[in-house]
């Protein structure tokens, strides 16, 4: 199951470390990662594969929500298909 994790919030130390540790603990592989500062805001996009995780999507979401609350950030996880649908004309070419 391919998904996109997006993290938005005020920049501080250790965001990448904490989010990637949480993903590792849920047995979720990070396939691609990009990070920028946009309008003073830390923005990180991770393409992940949750195929090996034993957790249901709902549980993964709950865990990330708990972490987001803890860090004072916004963390979303959404299936990659929503971004393919909205931003790619040909949805058979995934995430190009």
């Amino acid at each position, binding site marked *: 199951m391919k998904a996109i994790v997006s993290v938005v919030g005020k920049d501080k130390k250790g965001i990448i470390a904490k989010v990637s540790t949480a993903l590792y603990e849920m047995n979720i592989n990070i396939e691609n990662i990009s990070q920028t500062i946009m309008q003073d805001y830390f*923005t990180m996009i991770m393409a992940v594969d949750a195929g090996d995780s034993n957790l249901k999507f709902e549980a993964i979401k709950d865990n990330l929500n708990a972490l987001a609350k803890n860090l004072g950030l916004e963390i979303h996880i959404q299936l990659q298909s929503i971004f393919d649908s909205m*931003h790619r004309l040909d949805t058979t070419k995934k995430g190009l």
Partner: protein
Amino acid sequence: MYSSNEIIETINMISQQHLDVRTITLGISLFDCITDSKKRTCEKIYDKIMSKAANLVKIGNDISDEIGVPIVNKRISVTPISLISAASKGHLEIIRTLDKIADETGIDFLGGYSALVHKAMTPYEKEFILSIPEALSTTNKICSSINVATSKAGINMDAVALMGKIVKDCAYRTKDKDSLACAKLVVFANAVEDNPFMAGAFLGCGEDDTVVNVGVSGPGVVKTALESVDGDLNEVAECIKQTAFKITRVGQLVAKEASKRLNASFGIVDLSLAPTPVVGDSVAHILEEIGLESVGACGTTACLAMLNDAVKKGGIMACSSVGGLSGAFIPVSEDAGMIKATEIGALNLEKLEAMTAVCSVGLDMIAIPGDTTAEVISGIIADEIAIGVVNTKTTAVRVIPVYGKKAGEYAEFGGLLGRAPIMNINKYSPAKFISRGGRIPAPLHSNKN
């Protein structure tokens, strides 16, 4: 990999601009439930719908969770009940069964307490239509629609006259709730068979056994996109097209996924821009962003025509199967901008009628004074239906004569149905015209064969 801008655009559309999927509507054919026994027919209907739709709400919520887009309503549409109950005359028993199903499945609305009488009413269909006020005033989630005209058959004016009385009766029977039953009743010309939106959804005779139809939303997204367009109207139209493409793609994704999980056919995506009463989710505000001081100003019909057309052009490219009503909705009580325009006197019934000539779907959720006569309501219906018949498009009327209230007061419905300032209307009588009955023949240009 996506750019940050793309990801952030999607997230902002959802979290700030109210992008949502308005409804997953599961159409279920009830033809195989017809028997001549009331009891047996009800049992078969219960078993059939529960076997198909028991998980509809859960599946809708799951998909919403996974893609991160709200799916506001989960609904069921069925074959017009007048066809299913004709053999047993069991329509009042069926309404109890449908009410129970709506409660047990947890869906938001169930549509299809309907009859298609565009050319004539059979004696039983008349009896069925007379039961609508009882059906709608004693249930919460059941919706009813009556097709009184088509471009091919003309306008059944006997049905139009009867529907004026039915609307009044619905209003009276729910007088304690601002005549709420009228909000669940639509009178159509050229009704479509695959509409996911209420109150007019039913599953037509030419449809599959179980079908998923999806209605998208997102006026706030279009409005926000237009805020950054300074150019001429070509650029405005292009911007609407591109935004409509993205919105519709979400509908396509949800429809594909829902049909797979519900083991049903992929029906259509309805491209209608459906507003909600929430601030920032208004079709009126799109028109104002294009350049009107208020919706209702001179120029409104032209702006709406362009919006409606551009939404279709973007949406059709985004989706493998487009259908339903597919046009901008202008329900007064469900749109913060429409409510405001009515309050300040910028928008009246006559302008709304003109607007319906260039968009779907008609005079929608308009509160009128409670003392409006049945003949005047039939006159409103006849005018709106004539626009649909002559222009070969769907039009509809959903007006609420709010019992005991007059122009300037408010009807409060709550939820998606919103609140409506009661509009002043022309009270000169069309009684003689309406009482003539019979049929307005089909227009010349419908004879295309």
